């Protein structure tokens, strides 16, 4: 009994100090675990006091702002905290979030595709490759990639809906605008499981503000899930000292292999 009282007291003291010590991007108690705060908008100096190169924003030989490079992004596992307030759910959207339980089925733990939003908010870097007519995202997360045309063509409505959606891009002055639709609706926007439907329309804006940074803005427009568009801003930091590494999700995924992580019934999720 004595030990139990001591333990209980110590737990209270330590848990209190732990909560106080939590930075905004430390693991949270919400749906999926890690949470992100408003500060998630800046990758900033990075670990170890990294300082990105300084100078004006470079241009490509063909005259547009150069987005090429390996970029460190802020980890955004919780877009609600990054939003600074509650998300504007529709009734359907609120139900999707309230009934989400990763313990009953975790699609990313099962190595199914993260989807574009969750891959853009992951903590590992991304490489952007830019040509006059196309752009590619090389996500280190699970070694995925996305290639999109930036030659002025429109979305092809005949494409099959996909995990990462169908993207097209165009220049609006010095800003590259990437427009993505045709999602299959099987993914979540972030690690905490904030939902979206197959009506999601993502609009991303990439502006090379100087040699070391990209200003990134993402808009989630999904009238089935949210009553108004959600707009968030982040800063990407150039990492010429990094390279994209191979990332096999399947190789040593012990939680899934040994049955502790469940594969969700993702194809029927959200149909109710």
């Amino acid at each position: 009994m004595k030990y139990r009282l001591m333990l209980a007291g110590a737990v209270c003291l330590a848990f209190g100090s732990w909560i106080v010590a939590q930075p905004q991007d430390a693991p949270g108690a919400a749906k999926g675990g890690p949470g992100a705060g408003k500060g998630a908008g800046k990758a900033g100096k990075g670990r170890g006091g990294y300082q990105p190169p300084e100078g004006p924003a470079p241009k490509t030989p063909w005259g547009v702002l150069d987005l090429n490079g390996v970029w460190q992004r802020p980890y955004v596992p919780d877009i609600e905290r990054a939003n600074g307030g509650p998300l504007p759910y529709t009734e359907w959207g609120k139900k999707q979030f309230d009934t989400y339980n990763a313990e009953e089925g975790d699609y990313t733990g099962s190595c199914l595709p993260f989807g574009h939003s969750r891959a853009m908010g992951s903590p590992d870097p991304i490489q952007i490759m830019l040509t006059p007519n196309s752009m590619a995202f090389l996500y280190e997360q699970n070694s995925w990639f996305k290639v999109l045309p930036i030659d002025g063509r429109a979305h092809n409505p005949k494409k099959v809906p996909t995990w990462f959606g169908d993207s097209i891009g165009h220049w609006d002055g010095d800003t590259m605008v990437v427009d993505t639709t045709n999602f299959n609706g099987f993914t979540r926007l972030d690690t905490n499981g904030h939902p979206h439907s197959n009506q999601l329309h993502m609009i991303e804006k990439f502006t090379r503000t100087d040699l070391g940074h990209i200003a990134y803005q993402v808009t989630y427009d999904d009238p089935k899930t949210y009553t108004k568009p959600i707009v968030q801003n982040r800063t990407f930091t150039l990492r010429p000292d990094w390279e994209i590494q191979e990332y096999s999700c399947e190789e040593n995924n012990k939680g899934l292999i040994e049955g502790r992580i469940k594969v969700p019934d993702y194809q029927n999720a959200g149909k109710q």
Partner: protein
Amino acid sequence: MNKRLIGVTIFLGLTGGTSLWAHHSLAAEFDQKKPVSLTGTLTKLDWRNPHAWIYMDVKNASGGIDKWECELGSPNAMTRAGFTQDSVKVGDELVLDGILSKKGTNICSTRTVKGKDGRTVLSQTEGAK
């Protein structure tokens, strides 16, 4: 009081930091309300994506050995934080702080691993020093 708690003391001072979990939702497998601290001997480090795993022998109250296995972050992220698969070696005496699995015995998710000198030798939340 569970005898196992003598060898496996509840760790009370989890520190904050940017977690390097991204591959899956932590809540799918681990319980953040159940921190654990293990003192034991390294038997294996499996340095492969999406998560490295650390294996330790931990003495229990009966004088026997409990075999523990704990998930780490991705080798990619830990490499960028300054850790390598040579940061520890089999036989090292280590102190591991983490959280318990919801679904398995002697399984946890690691936050930090320290050597006998208190130096962090592996971590999901800190860079190598």
